[in-house]
């Protein structure tokens, strides 16, 4: 009998495929993984504590810095929680603009996912194309609010500014090209045999495991559970739009890739409908200059590109929140890494980590 001994390998915190500063302690038996322990905290900034010292309006720029590749969705989550707490009615036009921006940001975020998955698997060319196309969306946001990543565009009670004609034409232009862009990804990556071999039947996460861990978002849907807050707990006029929820079957890396790829076309459908039916009227509700929500607490959830973005805000009746807790989807989804890696090879850790799609700014908060 050959005697084998397990050993520990540290992956990260400075590793190109950890999407930031994440350290993973791998316990290995030869090439096989026995255990994978994510060790985080390298990007902790204490945002939850910082928010306690700021007024409700001043908290907003900090939510940009949680999940920095989909800041619009974080803005939306925070604002809708505060609006629920202070009972502010958002005008219909603002709700539609919010939907357009959140969905555009979802597409941008999924493009980052495809690009980083490709580069993690060694296909550098596959990264360049989605990143080039994402730049078109960032151009739209730059025209809209003057920032490429930290938007602070969605405000308490509405949005910062109305949609200009130029921005609408830029969005139309982008949507017209999106089908070609997705076709290009299919040609480059989806059809590629090496890409398929690396992703199919690896890092399987069953529906039961995913639900037990509290996984949400595209990862849960890839395991075959139809749970999308845009349909199941509608907010921000999502009930007005007709779209479907792509589901996976097995819950392997391939399903997680395909679900996100299909979600991009669904998001485009929503944006088209929202632009076509954009109501006229105000883009900002009447919000007092000093916002003092009544005593109490609120938990509000929205569907971000990575899952359920939840804000739990406790108000003591003053202009500053007493406590803010943020449910960050990346943080909770990262728990699945251990289950997804056990029994697979070292090379599959990179693919598993990539399909979880964690953003360290959000994991560490």
């Amino acid at each position, binding site marked *: 009998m050959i005697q084998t001994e397990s050993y520990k390998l540290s992956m990260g915190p400075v590793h190109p495929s950890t999407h930031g500063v994440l350290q993973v302690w791998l316990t290995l038996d030869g090439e096989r993984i026995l255990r994978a322990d994510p060790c985080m905290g390298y990007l902790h900034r204490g945002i939850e504590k910082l928010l306690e010292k700021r007024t409700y309006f001043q908290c907003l*720029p900090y939510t940009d810095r949680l999940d920095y590749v989909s800041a619009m969705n974080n803005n939306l989550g925070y604002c809708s929680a505060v609006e629920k707490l202070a009972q502010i009615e958002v005008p219909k036009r603002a709700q539609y603009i919010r939907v357009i921006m959140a969905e555009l940001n979802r597409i941008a975020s999924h493009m980052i996912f495809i690009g980083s998955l490709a580069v993690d698997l060694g296909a550098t060319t596959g990264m360049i*194309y989605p990143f080039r196309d994402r730049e078109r969306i960032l151009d739209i946001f730059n025209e809209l609010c003057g920032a490429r990543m930290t938007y602070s565009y969605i405000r308490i009670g509405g949005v910062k500014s109305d949609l200009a004609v130029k921005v609408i034409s830029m969005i139309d232009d982008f949507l017209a090209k999106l089908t070609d862009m997705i076709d290009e990804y299919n040609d480059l990556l989806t059809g590629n*045999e090496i890409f398929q071999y690396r992703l199919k039947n690896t890092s399987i996460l069953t529906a039961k495991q995913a639900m037990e861990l509290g996984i949400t978002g595209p990862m849960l849907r890839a395991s075959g559970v139809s749970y999308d807050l845009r349909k199941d707990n509608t907010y921000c006029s999502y009930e007005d739009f007709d779209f479907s929820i792509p589901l996976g079957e097995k819950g392997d890396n391939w399903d997680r890739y395909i679900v996100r790829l299909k979600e991009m076309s669904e998001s485009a459908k929503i944006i088209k409908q929202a632009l076509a039916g954009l109501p006229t009227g105000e883009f900002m509700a009447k919000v007092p200059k000093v916002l003092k929500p009544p005593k109490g607490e609120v938990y509000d959830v929205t569907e971000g590109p990575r899952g359920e973005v939840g804000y739990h805000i406790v108000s003591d009746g003053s202009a500053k929140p007493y406590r803010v807790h943020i449910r960050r989807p990346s943080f909770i989804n990262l728990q699945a890494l251990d289950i997804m890696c056990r029994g697979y090879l070292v090379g599959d850790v990179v693919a598993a980590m990539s399909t979880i799609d964690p953003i360290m700014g959000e994991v560490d908060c």
Partner: protein
Amino acid sequence: MQGKGLLVGLAVTLKHFFGKKETVQYPEEKIPMTEAFRGGKLLLDEKKCISCKLCAMACPNTALDLTVEIDENKKRHMKNYIHKAGRCLYCNFCVEACPVDALSWDKNYENSCYYRENLTYDAVENNRKDEKNG
């Protein structure tokens, strides 16, 4: 057929190899910033400014340090308008808070520097320098 996917992928890259370039040669060629772009240094229009300090109050990260002096006619003047760019979140709240539209960004994105102290500047002082240089 095994390997067909690879060839299709190669065809995509080959098509783009002869296509239009997406990149610009940066230091020689610069992309213009948008109208709404927020970044660079703050420009203070002292003629418009009423020294109300609302901008400093709106700032989430206390990046603005202002001193106001009152002259013999009991009129308020901005003596120092110190912007600590190292603390700035570039959220635009100061510009939006201004009731008289006295604040704007200079839209210069090349604002990296060697020393941390160089990130801090005085907008009033910058105005004086500009006046001197015409």
